[in-house]
């Protein structure tokens, strides 16, 4: 029995298996946003109707900011969920959509068909999406009354998730 081989082997093997085991339960695609708990990035965008919307305008009331586009399949799924939620939370929460890499004309046609749930802000350079650290649409940010981000959600929303996310800021 060569002890040296055994010891060196154990030193190499055990941490390796431990680390790989630790990696198993985790989803490599799920990334925590560093913005949660921080003030939302400032923005100044124009919506489809031509009105300017600034971050400051949202102060005083909780807000749900959703990044979406018409070419994104999960966004299409969550659209009716947002329409219903916007109706349900009408007076208590501001619902803001930010268009991610899409054309205003396409958006208008889409909204005419499927119904709108809030102002749709156009982010022509994608600068606001970058400031919010958007990895891919749909992504949803929840802002409390002071404009601090309390939660970020990746992927299509369902009614229960919307309720849970908003419960914290109401």
């Amino acid at each position, binding site marked *: 029995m060569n002890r040296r081989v055994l010891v060196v082997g154990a030193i190499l093997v055990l941490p390796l298996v431990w680390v790989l085991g630790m990696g198993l339960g985790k989803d490599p695609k799920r*990334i925590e946003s*560093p913005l949660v708990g921080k003030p939302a990035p400032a923005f100044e965008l124009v919506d489809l109707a031509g009105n300017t919307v600034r971050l400051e305008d949202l102060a005083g009331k909780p807000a749900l900011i959703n990044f979406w586009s018409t070419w994104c399949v999960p966004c299409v799924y969550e659209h009716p969920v947002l329409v219903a939620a916007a109706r349900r939370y009408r007076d208590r929460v501001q619902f803001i959509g930010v268009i991610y890499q899409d054309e205003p004309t396409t958006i208008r046609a889409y909204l005419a068909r499927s119904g709108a749930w809030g102002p749709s802000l156009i982010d022509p350079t994608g600068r606001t999406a970058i400031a919010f*650290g958007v990895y891919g649409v749909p992504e949803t940010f929840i802002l409390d009354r002071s404009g601090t981000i309390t939660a970020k959600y990746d992927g299509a929303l369902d009614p229960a998730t919307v309720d849970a996310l908003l419960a914290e800021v109401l």
Partner: protein
Amino acid sequence: MATRGVGLGLALLALLLTSAPALVAQDSAAVELDPRLGVPDDAPLSGPALEALTQEISSLIRCPVCQGLSVADSPTTSAVAMQDEVRRLLAAGYSGDQVLVYFETSYGEFIRLEPKAQGFNLVVWIAPFAFLLIGAALVAMRVRSSRAQLADNASRSAPRSASQSQEESQDVDHDPHNEPERDPSLEAYRQRVREEVKP
């Protein structure tokens, strides 16, 4: 990588030469809504120097919708938008480091395509060198011990070279140029060895 380093050097040089402050000032001062960005560290940048630095910095930012590609490499619209943002910030005079920090505060450390060399991340930067050093030390020890061995062999050269000739006869590649001069008495011994190994 080395070319990128040269690119960065050129960019910095150009930056020193063209630091005419007024060029983009009115633009940049008005645009930055985001307080996280703060005040630019460097002077505004334009032309080839800007392009070079944009390339340099975007190659360090991970494209969020791709698989392990940098923003500089990826052709996707998101990556192009991010590269444009990098270019805009650099043009306004933010330093490469400021731009990277800005992206990191939005996206998290994941967005950096190479880990920041600080804290625990130093492991990934240092371990390969440590490994190479330990390996080199082991090789050096082996060479030293074989030097002693060789000196030892030289004093008892006859039997050792005999066993060597057997080894050489099994070689896959036969290389007369690299072999020592054949002396006749040794050749006879070789012949005998070959006879013995013959099946």
